[in-house]
């Protein structure tokens, strides 16, 4: 087993990884920027190292500073969390070259899946359905228009090396496509350091459903069920649930089998997620992308399977067997996650500020993964996620009822939060019916 781990992240995910490390007797090392020195995860780690100023480029994205912190503290391994350096193959290689264990997949798998065009091509070869789209990078607006003529409108324009919904745009005609292309390219260069753009057919009225996979130390890949992530604003997830109310048993079996093939095609090891778009009416799905790391919304899978995914990541990274029988995973019950963001609940604009009061809900079936507490300051430097509020129930109705109570009992004063939006969501007829797709929020906020 690993002796120690440096957690190359911040906020709620650093805290969550440290919690499991501590339970397993793994010594934990936190890293923090000047903006985060007071956050709970820094105090909860066995050791903490300042790695730079608030700007991510000079702290959490500074591979050299992170690896130096690991060497200096004698950490045996590095867990990247999600975001920042988690899907940076060069960083993973540097970690390994420094003699540390990388708690993640082989850097080659990160690289293959990080390039969305290569990933699409590879998935197609592996027999995973993909939507019509580019097989090579689209270099300029003229080429984009030609590509769209071949694929058919509406199309989605996105950065081949991107993620998090940043720079993504939908276009229904040539003029909109030219504008979307320029936006995507400037964002791609700025946020992802690569101008490569991908165009694919936009699936309207789709659900966004992803499959959790685990590549085991012996090389086999298992699928641990799906998560429905269709509640989105600006192509970013706001709430997730499992099982998906829009996926039949038969469709689930096909999706899980395809996700296993996807993982096998890249020799995947550790926790990963295969994201798909689902047409519930037709009972079909297409591959969207694969995330080669732990997902923000992993807790819902943990709640219905009883499996601690971070524990499995540590076990797999050390070459050990997972803690459960991979052939006997039967999810039970229903779980929902609500992302509590520091943003106004109407326009969803960022609202950083100092937290003057913080009171979390608790009780049966309620889980809170929080990155902050009273007295902390939410700065504009990082994403707006304050906490993930999860509710579990034997049925979807029970999970929703517990989620409603938990939202009502969660109070944060100081920055505005989207908790009032979550209350509204949990009472909206469309969400409650389960028959919703990625357009849900735009209907609630016309």
């Amino acid at each position, binding site marked *: 087993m690993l002796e120690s781990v440096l957690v190359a992240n911040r906020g709620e995910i650093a805290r969550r990884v440290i919690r499991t490390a501590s339970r397993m007797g793994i010594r934990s090392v936190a890293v923090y920027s000047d903006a985060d020195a007071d956050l709970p995860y820094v105090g909860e780690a066995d050791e903490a190292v300042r790695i730079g100023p608030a700007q991510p480029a000079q702290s959490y994205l500074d591979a050299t500073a992170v690896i130096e912190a690991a060497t200096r503290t004698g950490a045996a391994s590095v867990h990247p969390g999600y975001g920042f350096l988690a899907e940076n193959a060069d960083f993973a290689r540097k970690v390994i070259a420094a003699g540390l264990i990388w708690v993640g997949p082989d850097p080659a798998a990160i690289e293959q899946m990080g390039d969305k065009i290569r990933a699409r091509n590879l998935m197609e070869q592996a027999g995973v359905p993909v939507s019509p789209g580019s097989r090579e990078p689209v270099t300029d607006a003229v080429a984009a228009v030609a590509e769209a003529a071949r694929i058919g409108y509406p199309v989605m324009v996105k950065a081949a090396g991107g993620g998090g919904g940043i720079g993504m745009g939908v276009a229904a005609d040539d003029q909109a496509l030219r504008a979307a292309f320029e936006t995507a390219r400037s964002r791609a260069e700025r946020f992802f350091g690569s101008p490569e753009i991908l165009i694919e057919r936009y699936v309207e009225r789709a659900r966004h459903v992803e499959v959790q996979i685990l590549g085991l130390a012996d090389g086999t890949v298992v699928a641990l069920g799906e998560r429905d992530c269709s509640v989105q604003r600006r192509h970013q997830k706001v709430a997730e649930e499992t099982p998906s109310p829009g996926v039949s048993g038969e469709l689930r079996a096909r999706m899980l089998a395809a996700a296993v093939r996807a993982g096998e095609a890249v020799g995947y090891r550790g926790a990963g997620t295969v994201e798909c778009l689902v047409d519930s009416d037709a009972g079909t799905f297409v591959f969207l992308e694969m995330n080669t790391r732990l997902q923000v919304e992993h807790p819902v899978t943990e709640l219905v399977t009883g499996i601690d995914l971070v524990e499995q990541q540590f076990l797999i990274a050390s070459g050990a067997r997972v803690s459960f029988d991979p052939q006997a995973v039967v999810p039970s019950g229903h779980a929902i996650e609500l992302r509590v963001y520091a943003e106004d609940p109407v326009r969803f*604009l*960022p609202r*950083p*500020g100092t937290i003057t009061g913080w009171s979390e809900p608790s009780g049966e079936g309620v889980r809170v993964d929080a990155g902050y507490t009273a007295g902390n300051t939410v*700065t*504009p*430097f*990082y994403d707006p996620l304050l906490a993930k509020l999860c509710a579990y129930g034997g049925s979807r109705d029970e999970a929703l009822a517990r989620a409603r109570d938990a939202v009502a009992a969660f109070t944060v004063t100081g920055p505005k939060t989207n908790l009032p939006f979550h209350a509204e969501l949990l009472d909206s007829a469309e969400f409650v019916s389960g028959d919703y797709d990625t357009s849900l929020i735009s209907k609630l906020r016309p």
Partner: protein
Amino acid sequence: MAEVRAEMVANVWKVVAAEGDHVDDGDTLVILESMKMEIPVLAEESGTVAKMHVSEGDVVQEGDLIAVIG
């Protein structure tokens, strides 16, 4: 004279309009960045940019003066 102020704590990512520029209602003056999101700050009336109070890389607090439109 109309004062344009920051709605939230943010970093100034881009200054789009310069002092002396004519701007129309709805034109982008600066683009702020907060929590990985770009937030354009728009002119709420037409006129000339009399004073630009921020530079790229600045951090603005809620209520800080960004520009004055004359």
